[in-house]
């Protein structure tokens, strides 16, 4: 994403939050700084890096110690000015990782849940279109218990979008869905967000997912957000380095590698001319994130 399309349009999101959770030896501190003009911002990084906590701070589900949150130019939180708009007045859509459909409501009732009483009775044209777009029109009367994991997350997405949020927050919504199903959901989500011009912040630790969805990516490491950038730039070192056909040259300062490729399931990523690649070995931690 380049410069602001229109100087009068405030960015979809500007935030700087310092959050501390837990107590004693279990304290986790988060320092995050995010900006999104429009489109989709992906927070990428290993589990436990503070991505989900950032979303919770944006949604007002945890209270930062310092910092501010501005959505579409409106201040939702400002520690210094004592501003703290409660979650239910923030106009922020929330799609959590775990199943979050109201089990006592049908698909249609779930989707209309956040709307004024009059619009909850029958599906109007707008809601029908939304269900159509997400391929769940045929499930309107179904109960959540009878839906598949992918269908449930589509309903959760429709429910969040139906309320016309100013910003949509998605916390690894497809984590429990198998690979092929997930790729289909990426296309669907991206197309739906574009159609509704809904800015979104999406959390994932899956580089392919980040690449499929992001306009901008911010990388998280141990409670800190890095600089944001274009997906290919930020995600380059998240892919395995292929030395197939590469030439290794030993020079004065070390080793140079020519013709190497970074290959991921979503395709190969080019390494910039004379670009540097840091190769690190690590085992991905699989702890659940708080």
């Amino acid at each position, binding site marked *: 994403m380049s410069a602001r399309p229109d100087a009068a349009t405030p960015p979809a999101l500007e935030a700087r939050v310092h959050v501390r959770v837990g107590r004693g030896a279990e304290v986790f501190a988060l320092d995050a700084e995010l900006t999104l003009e429009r489109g989709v911002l992906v927070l990428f990084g290993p589990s436990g890096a503070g991505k989900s906590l950032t979303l919770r701070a944006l*949604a007002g*589900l945890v209270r930062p110690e310092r910092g501010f949150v501005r959505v579409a130019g409106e201040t939702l939180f400002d520690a210094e000015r004592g501003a703290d708009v*409660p*979650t*239910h*007045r*923030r*106009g*922020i*859509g*929330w799609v*959590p990782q*775990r*199943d*979050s459909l*109201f*089990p*006592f409501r049908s698909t249609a009732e779930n989707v209309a*849940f*956040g709307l004024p009483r009059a619009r909850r009775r029958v599906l109007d044209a707008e809601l029908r279109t939304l269900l159509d777009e997400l391929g769940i029109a045929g499930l309107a009367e179904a*109960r*959540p*218990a009878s839906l598949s994991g992918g269908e449930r997350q589509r309903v*959760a997405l429709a*429910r*969040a979008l139906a*309320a016309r*949020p100013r910003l949509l*927050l998605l916390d690894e919504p497809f984590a429990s869905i198998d690979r092929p199903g997930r790729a289909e959901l990426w296309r669907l989500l991206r197309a739906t967000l574009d159609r509704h011009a809904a800015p979104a912040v999406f959390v994932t630790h899956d580089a392919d997912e980040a690449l499929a969805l992001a306009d901008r990516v911010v990388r998280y490491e141990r409670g800190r957000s890095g600089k944001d950038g274009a997906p290919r730039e930020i995600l380059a070192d998240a892919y395995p380095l292929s030395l197939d056909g590469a030439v290794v040259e030993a020079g004065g300062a070390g080793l140079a590698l020519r013709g190497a490729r970074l290959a991921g399931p979503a395709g190969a990523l080019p390494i910039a001319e004379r670009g540097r690649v840091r190769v690190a070995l690590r085992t991905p931690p699989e702890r659940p994130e708080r």
Partner: protein
Amino acid sequence: MSTGAGFPIALSLRVAALAVALIGPPGLALAWLQARRRYPGRTLVDALVLLPLVLPPTVVGYFLVVLFGRRGPIGRALEALFDARVVFTPAAAVIASAVVALPLLVKTAQPAIEAVPDELEEVGRSLGLGPASLFARVTLPAAWQGVTAAMVLAFARAVGEFGATLMFAGNVPGRTNTMPLELYAAWQAGDDARALLYVGVLSALSLAVVLLAPRLAPRAGAA
């Protein structure tokens, strides 16, 4: 059997229904508070909620008389404001049953509310629901089985209330003679048929409750 045999049955059901109606809203609010909030003094509140369950009902009755009697703080206020007296009235029977049933209501509803996934409430909030509508539209429907079980158990306990009722409401024929009191009176008077009637009604009611309550226990994946 006298003409009034049906009166204690109707009175008991009415007293228990009013008692549950009286403690329902504050009891569920208390259950929610204990389930969802961590605050200083929470353990103390927990203990106070449980107290009527552990105290001998006659002791509960004694405290109620002290509080609501003509020289008690609440009794004096009620008399000054509304010229109303509570002791030895049906209202006293309702209050006695309510106090004794409250622990059962709170302690049964609390785990049901705790079991409601955080995600549901968080999504509800993000969709614009304030605290009251969140409770009414998300928490309560999601916990309805446990909440209904709590109501049923509280009702059953209220119907069976004896000790506190006797101390606080007395056994005034035609006014406060609920089934358990009437049963005791009939037994003492050697009126076995009359005693057996209330034994039968109370046993049937209790049996229905113990058969019903487990079916209302929260089940995983139940919709």
